[in-house]
Structures are given as structure tokens and as C-alpha cells.
């Protein structure tokens, strides 16, 4: 494997949790709901996924448990914001803080346990392609899942009827309601999908990326995923570009340090944020993306009002 391939492989590994979480959040926001509980759902996925994998001895059961945990957290959020029409920003923040605390309790018996990282799954033929083969198709199953998610979320909202209904709920929930669509039910499904993605991203951290449990191990990745969605102006391909750009600069600045480049490490550490924001803002302004936020984003919907 050449140096270039190795770096590419590492970049994709580093970006995948961000990408999975961002794609989930994108669907939630497209339905008109702002769930700031990403970090909490993600870390619950990490804790429950690791715990289930240790108890059952099977990483795939861990993954399922992580998805269930993320969806469980999302359900709490849905009960508050859809059922009780509570403020979405406050509920989301509460969910993040709650998740960080609860995951510590769940993970406590598993501190110090270790598992081997999940096996890579080489796709035949494709993984033998020169340069990009190993990096794209010699990865763990999560990476393939992230590719599938991007394609699915590109195809679904723009090119299927249920997808258009989902977008209608996000653009004008009153109109969607008037047309007879069950706005709350659709938003519930979107929130659950977002929770599942967050749980999956969390499982990636505790089962593949750094295969152990420690409290607070998501280290703000949920918030970065949220930011990527906004700067990607709610489009899956741009979210993918944003996640890979962020992951890429993160890894490249570490390489630059290792190679002895004489730039202060603090400035280097700030680079991923800076470059990603600048790049996505430029894309957004060029393509008239300012108006692209779903019009009903963050507005609670009460059917009889």
C-alpha cells in the first residue's frame, strides 16, 4: 500500500462517523425538525453498542443495539417535540446533555473491556482497482453503509413520492396537513431515522474507530455533523463533501505535524473547521443556497391550530 492510499484510507475512516450522522440529521431537518440531540444519541449508540457487543460477543448485535439506542433517544425527543409541541432547540440540547450522562452510567461496567476492531470486508474485483480500490472498497461494513445512505438520501427526497411528502412537511407543514398528509407521523419516522443513523455513527466509534468504551468519547462529533448539514445546505452530496473535507484536513494536519512542518499545532488543529466552513460557504453562495433551509425548520406543528 502506498503512502497516498494509506492516507486516503485513514481519511475515509475518520470521516465516516461524521457522514453517517450528518445524513441522518439531514433527513430529520428536511422534515422540518431541528434535533440538536445528535451528540447525545451518538454517544448512547457508542455505549449501548459496545455493551451489547461485549455481552453477546458479536459486533453485529452491538450495531443493532446501537441503532436501537439511538432510536430510543430519538423517541424521547419525538415525544417532547411532536407529542407535547415543546421547543425543539431546548429539547435537543437537553437530549444531548442527558445522553452524555446516561451513556456514562450504561458504560460504567464496561470501562476497561476491550474488543478487536470489526473485520474489514474486501469487495471482490472492486478492491483490486488501482489507487482508490483499497481505500474505497477494502473497508469495514460501516463505510459501505455510509455510501448506501448517501445514495439513498439523494434518491429518496427528490425522486420518490414519499420523499416529496417528507419535504413538503419541512417546507410548509400547514399545506402538507391541508393535503391530508399525517405530518406528525412523517416527522416521527424522520426523527427515528436520524436516531438510527446517530446510533450507527456511535457504534462506529466504539466498535471500529477506537474499539473500547470511555465516557465522552464522541468528543463533539455530533455537533460537527450538525454544522455540516447546515453548511451543506441540506444536500447529501455536499454533506459528503463536507464530511470528507473535514476528515481529510484533520488527518492531513496530523501528517504535516509528523513531517515536521513548522506551523503551530494549535493553528493546525483549527484548520479543519476553518477550511470546511470556508469551502461550504463558497459553494452555498455560488449556488444561491441561502434560501435552501426548510421553511418550517424548528417550528412545532399542532394539527388543530
Amino acid at each position, binding site marked *: 500500500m502506498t*503512502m497516498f492510499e*494509506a*492516507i486516503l484510507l*485513514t481519511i475515509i*475512516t*475518520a470521516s465516516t462517523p461524521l457522514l453517517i450522522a450528518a445524513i441522518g440529521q439531514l433527513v430529520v431537518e428536511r422534515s422540518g425538525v431541528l434535533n440538536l440531540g445528535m451528540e447525545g444519541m451518538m454517544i448512547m449508540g457508542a455505549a449501548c453498542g459496545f455493551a451489547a457487543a461485549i455481552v453477546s460477543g458479536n459486533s453485529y448485535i452491538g450495531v443493532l443495539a446501537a441503532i436501537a439506542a439511538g432510536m430510543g433517544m430519538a423517541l424521547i425527543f419525538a415525544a417532547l417535540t411532536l407529542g407535547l409541541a415543546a421547543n425543539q432547540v431546548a429539547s435537543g440540547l437537553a437530549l444531548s446533555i442527558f445522553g452524555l450522562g446516561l451513556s*456514562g452510567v450504561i*458504560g*460504567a461496567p464496561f*470501562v*476497561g473491556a*476491550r474488543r*478487536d*476492531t470489526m473485520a474489514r470486508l474486501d469487495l471482490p474485483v472492486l478492491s483490486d482497482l488501482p489507487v482508490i480500490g483499497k481505500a474505497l472498497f477494502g473497508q469495514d461494513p460501516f463505510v459501505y453503509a455510509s455510501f448506501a445512505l448517501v445514495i439513498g438520501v439523494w434518491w429518496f427526497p427528490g425522486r420518490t413520492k414519499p420523499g416529496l411528502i417528507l419535504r413538503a412537511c419541512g417546507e410548509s407543514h400547514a399545506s402538507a396537513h391541508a393535503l391530508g398528509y399525517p405530518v406528525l407521523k412523517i416527522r416521527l419516522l424522520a426523527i427515528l431515522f436520524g436516531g438510527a443513523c446517530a446510533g450507527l455513527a456511535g457504534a462506529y*466509534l466504539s466498535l471500529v*474507530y*477506537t*474499539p*473500547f*468504551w*470511555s*465516557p*465522552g*468519547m464522541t*468528543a463533539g*462529533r455530533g455537533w460537527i455533523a450538525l454544522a455540516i448539514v447546515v453548511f451543506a445546505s441540506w444536500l447529501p452530496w455536499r454533506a459528503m463533501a463536507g464530511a470528507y473535507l473535514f476528515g481529510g484536513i*484533520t*488527518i492531513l494536519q*496530523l*501528517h504535516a*505535524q*509528523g*513531517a*515536521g*512542518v*513548522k*506551523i*503551530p*499545532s*494549535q493553528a493546525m*488543529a483549527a484548520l479543519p473547521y476553518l477550511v470546511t466552513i470556508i469551502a461550504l460557504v463558497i459553494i452555498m453562495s455560488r449556488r444561491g443556497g441561502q434560501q435552501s433551509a426548510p421553511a418550517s425548520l424548528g417550528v412545532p406543528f399542532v394539527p388543530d391550530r
Partner: protein
Amino acid sequence: MQINRRQVLGGATALAGAATLGQPVFAQSNPLQVGFIYVGPVGDFGWSTMHDLGRKRLEEVMGPAVKTTVVESVAANDMERVATQLGRQGHRLIFTTSFSFFQPTMRVAPTLPNVFFESATGTQTAANVSLYNARFYEGRYVQGVIAARKSKSKTIGYIAAFPVPEVIHAINTVMRGAWSVDPAMKIRVIWVNAWFNPGREADAARALIDQGCDVICQHTDSPAPLQLANERGVFGFGQASDMTRFAPKAHLTSSVNSWGDYYVERAKAVIAGSWTPGDVWGGLNSGLFKLAPFTNMTPEEASEAQRIADAISTGRLHPFDGPIVRADGSTVVPAGGRLTDDQIRAQNYFYRGIEVALPS
């Protein structure tokens, strides 16, 4: 709503009452309350975990004579508040277990003159502030010797937290040890600007390994870099606790901290009324830390490492003997001299031969 508020108020009153009960009204007959403030989570497997093991040892030895309280993952700018609260709750002895807590400890100590503070690493003592630390660099020298024996690419990868003297003199000492075996040894350093951030530590390890480093030293607290070394088939060292189980094929040795006996000694001193501010900086011979059993090494390599460790422990070998030359070529100490403890604690330069950018 009113009922709710009343319940809340009632709860608050009960809590306040409980807090009052907790005050040492009859301090003589009550157990000594000891507070521990950690910079990371108890479950970091490293620095904070080992302080907590020390706390457990204290409870085990002293039994009902002490009562301990833990506050984990405290940010440096929140340390004063936490310490003040512990002091008001009647804690007479508080261990602030990070260099990041040293300045806040110095600020809060004069406001709580009846509380004895113990700061794990720092630069000066005060009327009610002691310092304690271990000479971890002694273990770093041994790591350097082992790394030079194990490395085929002749390049060590070092994952560093912050550019503070403790980390800088550790990097210098690793290379001192490595050069004693092979003067051609080189080092690459990545600063992750965190003591504990498993994801970033693992990313740094990936980058170093991709650049050809085949022995990884870490000055951060999670087992992530070592685990990654295991996955990628290179070697590494554990930090603060014995991390063998995280990397059965990669682990060479760990520096294992052991604070329990010191905590017992200091708690006994407070109870006896004989506590005085001290400045403890113990080496391999002090029991404050030891090296975990050597693994993945040939018998010859292990016995050489043990010989070096013994030589340092008995004072026959000193990692800061001259000549010491800075990266810019100026001599700090000529041959025959030796750095003083204060000079070691203030080291803010790399030795000649270490070509690494030092963040300002």
C-alpha cells in the same frame, strides 16, 4: 404548578439540611473527609484511573478513619468552584490531580486556610499546598532504549498532549535512551492538544504509522494509540496503567503509576496534625511508579531494559547528565555536569537531533 414548586422548595430545604448535617460540627470524632479532583473521567484507563486506584487504596488502608469524595472530568477553569465547594462541605484534604489545576489551586488555597491541598505536579508550594509527582522521565529513558532495539525503520512516533516541560523533557529523554543504543534514531511528534481524546489520539497514531514510525510512544491517557499499534502490527508503550490487555501483540511495557501509599501517608499526617507542605518527586525507586512486565521482547532485550531501569533506579545512570545541547546548538550543560531538578522542570527546548516544531 404550585404543588410542584412547593415540592421543589421542600426538596431544596431537605438538601440544605443534609448539607448542614455534613458539616464537621465535631470534627474530632468524624472521619477525615478527603476530596479528589480529576482532570479526566475515572474510566480513562490512564492518569485519572490510577489516581482513583490510589484513592481506593487509601480507603482500604484507613477504613472508617477517612471518607473520600470524587469529582471527575473537571475543567481547569471550574476547578476553583469545585475545590471551594469541597472545602465548605468539610473536606480537610484535597488532591488536585493535574498540572492544569496547579494555578487554580494556588488561587483557591489562601481562601480555604484550614484545607490542605496536594497538587499533582506544579512549580511551587504554599502554606497549605504540597506538590507531588513522579520522575516519569526515568521510564521514558527505558522506553527509548527498548524502542531503538525494536524499531526497524529507526523512527519513533510520539503522540504528545501539550508543549509543557513535563512532555518536552519526556520526548528529550526518550531520544537520549534511543541514541544510547543507536545514534541514528529519529523521532516524529504529533501534538493532539488534549490529555484525553481517544479519536484524535488514534488518528495521530495512524498518521505516524503511515509515515513509517514502527514504535509508538504516547503522552496522552487513552489506550487508543496502543490498540491501533496492535492492529497495524507495530509496537507501543502503555501510559499510566498496565495496558497489556489492550495490545497483546504490540505492548512492550507501560509506566504504571501508584499513588496509594502516598495518599495514605498524607492522610495520616493530617489526622496526626503533622501535615507540612512538601515537594515530592519520586523516581523508580520511590514506588510512585513502576514499569509493567516487559512483553513482546526477546529475553536479551528484556534483560537489557531491566538492567537500564535498575541503573537509573540506583542512581548509576542519570538521564540528564551532560553534555546537553539544545536544538539551536547552544550547550546547556557540558560533559560532567547534570541538570538540576528546577532546570528539568523548566525544560522548554528540544535537544540537538530532534527536528520537531515546538508550538509556542
